[in-house]
């Protein structure tokens, strides 16, 4: 009986993995392949307007794999962008891009399983630790691997790059203005950010990426990034898994985009403190406190703010040393 259950579970996981890329490939086949190359060519051919954008700098926040749609991200993440908006009032802090869909189509929007996702969303609102809520994480984690895949990634990344570009333009960004854009990617959002940079970099935008506990591959998009700051927790098993799972980030991976970026001094890896990925004492935990009195959420916000403004990052000192 147990063997059959395991076989069924294995089959379900396999099918979920195999069907994972179909959304972005299907979108590319249906319309993306027609619309995007032309739109990209038009944008590339358009002369710079010479106008200054209304904001000093632009930041786009890409949520972790718990996000359901552009407006429904886990509530614990909201204070990060809210606080950044307070501290940087002349900057645009956007969080309207759903990173796990090529066309910003949230899980509860027009989809085959929208009903299921709406139910999961309701359950998760009642109980954030609901086991069914993990379905969202599993679905989005598969999209992370689609994004990181060299075969499926191009179609996925061009879609998310377009949605990020749309978000920037909705907020008045002017191509050719040279105004810097920073993508903040939490967890799987870091991979989506780096992947999208491969295409965003075509438009002469100064790009930076801040990864918070990010799981990301040695994506070719790294070649288009001016600087990547990877903020990690020393007790974060998923972040650590990223170093193991993605071979291009192994120490001997000569010639990988990651190794190249490191060799060129375009990568900073900063250990914030003993943060975990989920559960308790995670990056957004307002109940866990550092010895200096700040809670972990504040530590994360301070660190991201410091990276954005070019100040030194204040980390939690390791008492065991």
């Amino acid at each position: 009986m147990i063997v059959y259950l395991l076989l069924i579970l294995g089959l379900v996981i396999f099918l979920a993995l195999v069907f994972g890329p179909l959304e972005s490939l299907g979108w590319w086949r249906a319309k993306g392949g027609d619309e995007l190359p032309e739109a990209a060519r038009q944008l590339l051919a358009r002369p710079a307007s010479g106008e200054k954008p209304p904001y000093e700098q632009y930041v786009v926040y890409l949520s972790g794999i718990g996000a359901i749609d552009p407006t429904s991200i886990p509530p614990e993440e909201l204070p990060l962008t809210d606080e950044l908006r307070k501290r940087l009032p002349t900057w645009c802090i956007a969080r309207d891009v759903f990173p796990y869909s090529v066309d910003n189509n949230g899980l509860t929007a027009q989809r085959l399983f929208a009903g299921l996702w709406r139910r999961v969303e309701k359950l998760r609102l009642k109980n954030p630790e609901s086991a069914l809520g993990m379905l969202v994480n599993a679905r989005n984690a598969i999209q992370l691997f689609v994004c990181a895949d060299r075969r499926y990634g191009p179609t996925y990344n061009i879609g998310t790059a377009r949605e990020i570009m749309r978000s920037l333009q909705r907020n008045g960004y002017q191509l050719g203005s040279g105004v810097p854009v920073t993508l903040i990617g939490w967890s799987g959002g870091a991979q989506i950010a780096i992947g999208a940079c491969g295409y965003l970099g075509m438009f002469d935008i100064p790009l930076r990426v801040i990864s918070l506990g990010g799981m990301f591959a040695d994506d070719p998009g790294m070649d288009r990034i001016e600087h990547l700051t990877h903020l990690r927790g020393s007790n974060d098993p998923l972040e650590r898994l990223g170093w193991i799972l993605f071979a291009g980030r192994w120490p001997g991976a000569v010639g990988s985009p990651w190794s190249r970026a490191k060799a060129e001094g375009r990568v900073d890896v900063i250990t914030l403190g003993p943060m975990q990925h989920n559960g308790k004492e995670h990056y957004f935990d307002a109940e866990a406190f550092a010895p200096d009195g700040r809670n972990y959420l504040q530590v994360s916000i301070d660190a991201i703010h410091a990276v954005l403004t070019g100040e030194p990052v204040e980390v939690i000192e390791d008492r065991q040393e």
Partner: protein
Amino acid sequence: MGGIAEFIESVGRALWGVWTLDAENARWLADDPNASWVAVTIAVLAGASTLLGNSVVLFLNRVRGVRFALSLLFNGLGFVVLYAVQALIIAVVGYLVTGQRLDVGMSAWAVLLATAPLVFGFFELIPYLGPGIARLLQAWGLIALWVIVEVLYQVGHWTALLIVGVGWGAMQLVSWLLARPLASLGQAVWRLVTGLPTMVTAQDLLSGHMFTPVEFDLGLTERPETR
């Protein structure tokens, strides 16, 4: 009816034997009157499984109808040429190492049988991990070929390893020597068949991975200057 059941049983037993690297099984199969058909069936299953992944990408990449069928045919022919070259190399290297003249048909049998791990080729569809799984399957196939060559030439482990190792090295050399002409040929045929530009390399052709789902790259293949 009984004949078909027996044949299916032989294919199943051969598959299991290759997967488990069982030399006894290879000995049994070498004496089976249906050995050639069993090997061909396994190779067809392996090819179909590998094609499954590639063809989904191909279909979704807006290659349809006659072009789709032609692309599959092109890929299938690619497999046949690949295995024929590999069989020839094993026969030549085997002769040079052992002095035994091996029928090219037997060499082809060994190569086709060793494709049994590629029956799991559909796993290549899995995002990110797929290409790694494909490499593992190829390595598994190479080890299977080692076991089969050992039985076929009736030589020890190390001599068989030498034949397979030199054969593998020769395939790499062929790949290096024919890299440019093969890539040009592959791209020309691909363009003819699909009407799309391609990023197929000679290595892709030689490893049986013919398709890359990219219709355009907007210059992304060129590494930009880092600001």
